[in-house]
């Protein structure tokens, strides 16, 4: 594939950014919900 660096790079940047955000979000979710009583978690 010509220009493979740019093309694969754009895919890596895209999904890398989403994955990084998802990991950050999951960690944060775990931290803030740890000490929370169930009634404060309406989704459970």
């Amino acid at each position, binding site marked *: 594939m010509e220009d493979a660096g740019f093309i*694969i790079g*754009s895919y*890596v*940047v895209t*999904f*890398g950014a989403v994955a990084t955000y998802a990991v950050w979000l999951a960690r944060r979710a775990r931290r803030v919900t740890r000490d929370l009583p169930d009634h404060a*978690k309406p989704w459970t």
Partner: protein
Amino acid sequence: MIGEHVADTLATEPSAASDDVASSGTATRATRLLGAAALVGVAWLAAFGLGFSPADRDQRESVRILYVHVPSAWLAYLAFVVTAVASGLYLFRRSHALGWDRVAGASAEVGVLFMGITLVSGMLWGRLTWGVFWEWDARLTTTAFLFVTYVGYLAVRGLGGSHQQRARRSAVLALLAVLEIPLVHWSVRLWRSLHQEATVLRPDGDVKMDGLMLFTLFVGIVAFTLMYAWLVVHRQRTLAAEDAADDAGLDRALAARRAEVG
């Protein structure tokens, strides 16, 4: 992560994220299904975008970037529309439900992420197709303004104050953005049309779509919609948990203070 094969990266990274939230956190059965579907969508997108879809006659291989660029742009726009609608629902309903405020904030954050992705992937595509990273095209410029505007919106959400204060402030700002963005777009378009006669290859103008390319784009939109939904649901729940923790902390502090005094 960078060194691995792209498809591997896509398959492993977000699944690690979904596993993380399995024990505690903000996951439910529905969001796990949603996350799994998003992963499948991303794998499909990588397979079709990088593998099965053909090269374009004019843009050749660089068209593959558009399968992530166009869906992320559309979802970013959708995210900002959701932010505006949720802000309106917060502001104009008598109940002033903080739930709508948190939906607005979660959607704006994911929208900023997608818009940043759009700008980077668009610049890479522009370098291959136009030979430059940036063109002073009205749409590009408006996109950059959208990005900065919502970065500012997120900064305003972080200003502090009570939850209702934060919600009111940011809701007004989100609705003002609805006023601002068309004005910016209109003025930039006028500016360019008077000053630049050279024709620019429009981001979507010259794409000859065959069936498989259209299908790949469709896969991209589905994959990004699923990612958007998963991220917004979790962000919104995390924000709710943060607000609840804030309130609980305040209650504890008040109780301690009362015990001290009494």
